[in-house]
């Protein structure tokens, strides 16, 4: 087994793990964390593909590597935005939870339309 295959299997497991965590964990913060883990797995897969594409005197194909750099920056922006949203939700309501599945309960006290 080559190193690329090894890391490829590692990436597959990370994707499964991250996907599981981001679906199942009830805490939004840990969903965000699991999403980052999942992202790490996806990027690692790109890295394996890049390494397998070593050619023309290059140790790896630079195109997927560049995509990973772009992807890491996007994932960080997403994390910063999601964490800020979560903290703001916590400041506003005193709790940090998403009651998934519950349809928005009409609140008799607030008569404001969403406009």
């Amino acid at each position: 087994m080559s190193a690329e295959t090894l890391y490829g299997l590692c990436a597959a497991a990370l994707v499964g793990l991250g996907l599981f965590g981001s679906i199942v964990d009830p805490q939004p913060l840990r969903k965000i964390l699991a999403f980052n883990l999942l992202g790490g797995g996806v990027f690692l897969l790109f890295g394996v593909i890049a390494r397998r594409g070593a050619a023309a005197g290059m140790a790896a194909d630079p195109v997927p590597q560049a995509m990973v750099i772009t992807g890491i920056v996007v994932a960080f922006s997403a994390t910063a935005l999601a964490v800020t949203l979560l903290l703001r939700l916590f400041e506003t309501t005193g709790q940090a939870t998403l009651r998934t599945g519950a349809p928005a309960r009409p609140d008799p006290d607030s008569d404001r339309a969403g406009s």
Partner: protein
Amino acid sequence: MPPAVTLASAATAGGFLLVLAIILPAAGVLLALAFGRHAERIALLLMPAGFAIAIAILADVWHSQASLVAVMGGWAPPLGIALRADGLSAMMLVTTALVICAVGLFARGDFGMPAGGGEARAPLVFWTMLMGVWSALNAIWLGRDLFNLYVALELLTFSAVPLVCLDGRAETLAAALRYLLFALVGSVLYLLGVALFYGAYGTLDIGLLAGRVRAEPVVWVSAALMTAGLLAKTALFPLHLWLPPAHAGAPAAASAVLSALVVKGSFFLAVRLWFDVLPGLPGVPAAQALGTLGAAAIIFGSVLALRQERLKLLIAYSTIAQIGYLFLLFPLSTGAAAAGIWGSVAWTGGVYQLVSHAIAKAAMFMAAGLIGEALGHDRIAGLGGIGRALPMTIFAFGLGGMSLMGLPPSGGFVAKLMLLTASVTEGQWWWAVVILLGGLLAAAYVFRVLAPALAGADEPLRLCARVSRRREAVVLALAVGALLLGLLPLRPSELLQIGRPAAPTAIMR
């Protein structure tokens, strides 16, 4: 210049228009951030220009009867990235420009900068994000590279999410967070598929991939992952949970953009994936599965819309149902159906639904916004007499509703008729039943709003705020547009055929 640096051979003369369609709103984002207090002016100045570019691209595609292509930096794919406008892209560009401009005119009342000349939060964020949405959507309509499309998809997410919680209420914050989490997992699954495609075929260019894909495991896995990710972003049943609170909680102008355009971006990519990247792969089970989810969305979304007490939530649930129709184009125009004329009709009907729902839904959300502004609430039970107070707005709402129901001569009618005929002719009659049932349910929920609105009030109606005639006129104009779409059905369907991948042939063994 040595020719080696520049590989631009496939680029067409009008290619710079494609670049401008993406770059102009992006430049608007930069300008708005740098000169915050002029954000509104910058956005409104860019709108006519953006509209003109979209029209110019449409005209160019129509006249040349061929796709426009631009090659970025002269680096031809697979190393570089190309943009391409076919008939479908041109139609989406114009639809987007139309809706964005209407929303811009409408939002001048809600998101004007304060009189003092300083910069304020909500206006700056709204106008900048609106430019961001526009740039992202145009990049999606024009993109030919799957990773470039991933970046565009993320651009769309990041511009859309802050629009949901502009008012900072707890419910909208939770809705925005849930939306963001769904969208992030969706795009990372899409990205996973992109990685697999690159690893197998060494290119991400849609045209090159189409020539290289074979029916093998890697294609199935990556297509499944990408489709699942895109469905989560499109809010197809059963991944729709995030949509109603997000779309209903946003300010009306933002709801219009989100429901009319933003969810269509990821749907469009699913269409590109199945029809442009994988034409001719026998995805019949997958297509039937997508159609089934779409049918479930139509029934489920409509029934839930019928049970809402709030106008904006009703409209948001109707979006779930109308998204369902879009997915009927998969079973009706792939597989055996693809080769025949009816497959093509179904495909055109699906795209028609995309456009007509965009325009109708934008009009309806903005109408709901005006109603909410006038009444101070949006409870359906309390709409009595509003028809007399805001006749133009209610009329516009009704016209939009006609498109949802599929009544002639609306654009929705043409779309649903095409889907219906195709399903009957192809012998897949079960979709026809769903289409008809969905139309009836849509009629029921639209009349649930119109009936009290047109009835007289028990007591004289007290309006909280005066609604400007100008904004009412914008909404009505858009709704009339949705109606007129049905009167010119033939030419657009010719347009849609331009640059469409040839009817799938036997790539398959």
